[in-house]
């Protein structure tokens, strides 16, 4: 039997959810018996491959690059999991949403700069007007809140998906 293909990515988040994923400890060995991680910060692939079974997406959708990657992951994956509070609710990245983008950038890069003040434009993706939860940009199949989600919740979710079931978090559901 072919192994299940898991892709992971990290949009506007702190990488904490990926840390929690690594924190599965020996649990990851069990996962890798029936699955391969084919894309993400933990592997070398440069582009989200076709035919992914499970996409684990951390972070809010905050920039044009985030939006593009989220849409690509959606188009090329069967099941999309919003992993962690940023992907599920917007969380900390969304705290900027009441402030117009231009004012925000000026406050940080001009008023807040000790030297070489100026809003960077080269090589950085444009900010979207608001940092939104993943479901505002693409269809999400499974929501796993938590900041970060506990490793046992992630292991449970992956386990259920590998068994072909949509996970019901129950008592593992936790925000913050």
């Amino acid at each position, binding site marked *: 039997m072919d192994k299940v293909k898991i892709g992971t990515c990290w949009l506007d988040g702190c990488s904490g959810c990926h840390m929690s994923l690594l924190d599965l400890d020996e649990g990851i060995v069990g996962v890798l018996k029936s699955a391969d991680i084919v894309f993400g910060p933990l592997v070398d692939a440069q582009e989200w491959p076709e035919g992914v079974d499970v996409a684990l997406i951390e972070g809010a959708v905050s920039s044009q690059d985030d939006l593009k990657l989220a849409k690509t992951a959606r188009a090329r994956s069967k099941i999309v999991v919003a992993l962690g509070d940023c992907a599920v609710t917007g969380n900390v990245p*969304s705290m900027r949403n009441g402030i117009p983008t231009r004012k925000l950038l000026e406050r940080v890069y001009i008023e807040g700069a000790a030297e070489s003040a100026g809003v960077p434009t080269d090589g950085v993706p444009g900010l979207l007007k608001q940092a939104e939860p993943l479901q505002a940009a693409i269809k999400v199949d499974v929501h796993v809140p938590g900041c970060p989600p506990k490793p046992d919740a992630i292991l449970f979710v992956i386990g259920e998906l590998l068994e072909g079931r949509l996970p019901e978090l129950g008592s593992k559901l936790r925000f913050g």
Partner: protein
Amino acid sequence: MTEKVKVRIDGEVIAATAGQTILEVARANNKYIPALCYMEGLSAVGACRLCMVEVAGAARLLPACTTPVQEGLAVATSSPQLQSYRKIALELLLVERNHVCSVCVSSGHCELQSLAQEHGVTHVRYPYNYPRLSVDTTHPRFVLDHNRCVLCSRCVRTCAEIEGAHVWDIAGRGIGSRLVSELQRPWGEATSCTSCGKCVQACPTGAMAEKGWGVEEMTKKRAVVSRLTTMREGM
């Protein structure tokens, strides 16, 4: 003269006293009905809509915290329809302001957070409102963060009914409603505030907190506030 009545909660016959509310009878008999704006020892206002129950013969849902029992009343507390409405009510509370659990002093001890988890709110199905709201840090010991306020008015009632100072009120209408201290004076300048801190203890979320606590560190002593009423009734 207290009149005894018999009511049925989820099929079970329970003896109650006329004048008690459905919620009081349910809680006294270990029947769980969720509630957020209700707090023992305070008047009930029926604001949060989480305690809505089905009453046999009534065409609409009724809030358990403000509906008095009467002889023969039959109540259903947790039908799938009620569960679905409660979930919607919680989602609407979550989208209205900026409830960012991960940076909240009350995370892990928050009634809104635990109700959402208990009702299986894995995400909200409505667009977030992202209002820009202020944080009042003018009081030397306490802080009021409007981002986390659910307008339950427990602080308003605690201050007016238990402390007797009535510093707090709710101004404005609908989604523009805001908790205000002393006709919009900053909390630190409110001359009628005794700084007793009971409003802070009564607050179900991290909207009111003691200064100096970090994320997840602020626990509240709600029972202490409720007990004041019980003790006065006994006097």
